[in-house]
């Protein structure tokens, strides 16, 4: 059985297929089928020849085998420094071999590659900063994931994840109607406390368009409400698109390049349609990376930029606080030791290290902010990046990976962690669940709402 019913080289394109794969608990049958999946060496090699150019080839050629990248990788550190976790080794023994053998590799080898690509690398790109030659294994693993996906060797959850994106254009089964309905619902719920608050859907020519993570409408719609409150208080002329509101990309984690493109195009289409001056997204790292940092290239934009300036939520917040659109009541600032999790996806990948600290300077009483070590672009991955959080099969490895962040947090002595990224937030929640170190963690939105100095006229008229 070269191609399975559940596990095959074809992406999930229909709702039926999606439901079918989803109904296979824990992917038991899916992974069983994978054992039989045939490798199409010719197609694999053709794809490599087409897509592997001088950058990657050179990286393989000039790698000095010096092992300097070893210590830069948190997975190497946290897994007892076994040599099999050295980034250079990980990529050479997988992608390197496939290339060397011109794609003529076995099913077993492909499954091994899958394990390495999704459970031994989170594509955090940290090693790239510590290689004297500038070899970025994170980038190469991203590439390897694409090759594996094209051959059907991808963890069950991510096959479904990119299937969701293909079918629903969102990482979960949230339809356009569900989304619009959620916006209405949240507006209704919030309006009472914030008179005049609206969640304008599909408003033309707004100053800023907001996009989010499907998990928010699906499970945490208060996050949408919180965004609305902050836009409302800041007096922002904003909107959300009815279509193209989902900013995340599990397809990026899965290596489903075609789907990545489709997702981002959908968001850009919303921008074209509504013509906002700018756009911003929720407190999510990989969503920003997908839509703003990598997206323009997937869709083939020659300037490498989205159609309008597309800022991360932390940039919007910093700006609103800086310009006084949002005011913090100094009495309500955080007065306990607090630390900040720098997300790889917009700190190491877009340098947004200073804006978050600017926000901190407004909301934390001076003297209470403690940096993690290392920090900023040198910070370690939360432990759950690159899809690691979501893959059942690698749960154990993921839990081990969380220890790096745990130690970093413990070293700060803080009990409160600000984590302006969905993935980091999840990883930190899980790490508390797993290791119970007694910490709390939060996105920025709820913290800021709790500290706002709200102008008199925005408060609900008093009851009496």
């Amino acid at each position: 059985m070269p191609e399975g019913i559940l596990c095959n080289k074809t992406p999930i394109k229909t709702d039926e297929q999606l439901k079918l794969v989803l109904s296979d608990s824990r992917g038991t049958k899916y992974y069983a089928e994978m054992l039989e999946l045939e490798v199409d060496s010719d197609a694999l090699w053709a794809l490599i020849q087409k897509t592997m150019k001088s950058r990657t080839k050179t990286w393989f050629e000039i790698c000095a085998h010096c092992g300097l990248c070893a210590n830069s990788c948190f997975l190497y550190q946290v897994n007892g420094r076994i040599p099999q976790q050295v980034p250079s080794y990980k990529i050479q023994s997988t992608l390197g071999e496939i290339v060397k053998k011109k794609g003529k590799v076995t099913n077993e080898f492909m499954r091994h590659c899958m394990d390495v690509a999704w459970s031994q690398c989170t594509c955090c790109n940290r090693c790239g900063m510590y290689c004297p030659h500038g070899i970025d294994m994170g980038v190469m693993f991203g590439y390897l994931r694409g090759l594996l996906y094209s051959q059907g060797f991808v963890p069950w959850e991510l096959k479904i994840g990119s299937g969701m994106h293909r079918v629903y254009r969102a990482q979960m089964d949230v339809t356009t109607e569900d989304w619009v309905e959620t916006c209405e619902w949240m507006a209704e719920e919030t309006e009472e406390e914030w008179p005049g608050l609206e969640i304008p859907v599909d408003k033309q020519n707004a100053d800023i368009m907001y996009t989010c993570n499907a998990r928010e409408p699906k499970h945490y719609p208060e996050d949408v409400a919180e965004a609305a409150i902050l836009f409302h208080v800041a007096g922002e002329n904003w909107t959300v698109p009815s279509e193209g509101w989902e900013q995340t990309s599990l397809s990026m984690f899965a290596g489903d390049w075609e789907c990545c493109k489709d997702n981002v195009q959908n968001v850009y289409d919303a921008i074209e349609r509504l013509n906002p001056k700018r756009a911003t997204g929720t407190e999510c790292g990989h969503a920003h990376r997908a839509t703003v940092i990598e997206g323009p290239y997937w869709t083939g934009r020659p300037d490498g930029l989205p159609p309008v300036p597309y800022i991360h939520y932390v940039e919007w917040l910093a700006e609103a606080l800086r310009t006084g659109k949002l005011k913090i009541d100094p009495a309500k600032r955080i007065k306990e030791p607090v630390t900040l999790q720098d997300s790889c996806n917009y700190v190491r990948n877009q340098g947004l290290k200073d804006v978050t600290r600017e926000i901190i300077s407004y909301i934390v009483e001076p003297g209470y902010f403690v940096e993690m070590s290392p920090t900023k672009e040198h910070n370690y991955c939360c432990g759950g990046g690159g899809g690691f959080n979501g893959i059942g099969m690698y749960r154990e490895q993921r839990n081990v990976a969380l220890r790096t962040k745990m130690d970093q947090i413990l070293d700060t002595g803080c009990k409160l962690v600000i984590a302006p990224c969905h993935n980091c937030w999840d990883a930190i929640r899980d790490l508390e669940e797993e290791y119970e170190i007694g910490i709390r963690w939060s996105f920025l939105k709820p913290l800021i709402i709790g500290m706002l100095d709200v102008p008199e006229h925005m408060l609900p008229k008093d009851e009496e």
Partner: protein
Amino acid sequence: MFKKIILATTGSPASFGAARVAFDMAKRYGSEVTIFHVLGVPTKAFSHVVNDVRTGEEVEVDADYLAWVEEELKTTYAKQFAGAENAKIVLATGMPPREILREARSQDADLIVMGASSGDSAKYQRGYPGSTLQKVAKAARCPVLTVHRESASYWGGFSNILFGTDFSKQATSAFKFALNTARELDCDLTIFHALDISGKVLDQDQIEEQLIVARKRIRATYVPQMGDFKNFDIEVWEGAPYVEIVKLAREKQVDLIVMAHHAHELDAEKAKIGSTVEQVIVRANCPVVSVSKPDKV
């Protein structure tokens, strides 16, 4: 008035009191009851793995699991099911308060019935302040009836309603609900205000004076709304509001307390001390209805 009732439950003994009230109401007033159970909080990806609400363990939500939970619930409520024609079970995954609100909204429910601890397990509380009850009570369009104690003195049906007011906007809605219920079910209604003197030093004359003012205010605010409804009574006492309400309820053998819910505060610590209604819920010996919106009264 009680056409659609949502019984938010964990299926645990703590929710039996709530279930008893809900099913009884269904039988008496011909309501449709939805036994609404949130399986758990999704831990990763697309909600297929959840932390089970009761055990806190991670489980995979698939057809087998769903069938099993449904069976469990049916057994748990077997007795009640027997008499209730219009009962169905709905299962969902997500954060319990959110999903309860979502279901209430999509059904346009008239009443949500919950045990005071419906769906609170330490596991998914983390990272989100406020209890399930607080969140539901705060945001629900319809009144929320809570039965905290299993032993609550509920003998079936309502005959004696206590409405506690603080004259807030929400209290107006709560009053309408209390009045409509009293009318519909032919109950006695006590309108009560507690003069909050905690932390204040007042001499007896001042207290007396304020009690008279409050009494007048009740007359001016609520009596005109009652039209031909005459089974009411007005009480104004001084003291800590939640204590006085519970005391009075006990004295008068009240079987339903109606109050406004208007805690803006979601921070669990602050809200717990701040909100009278929550204190009442914990202490009262009968069901308590909290009302915060004017829509479904």
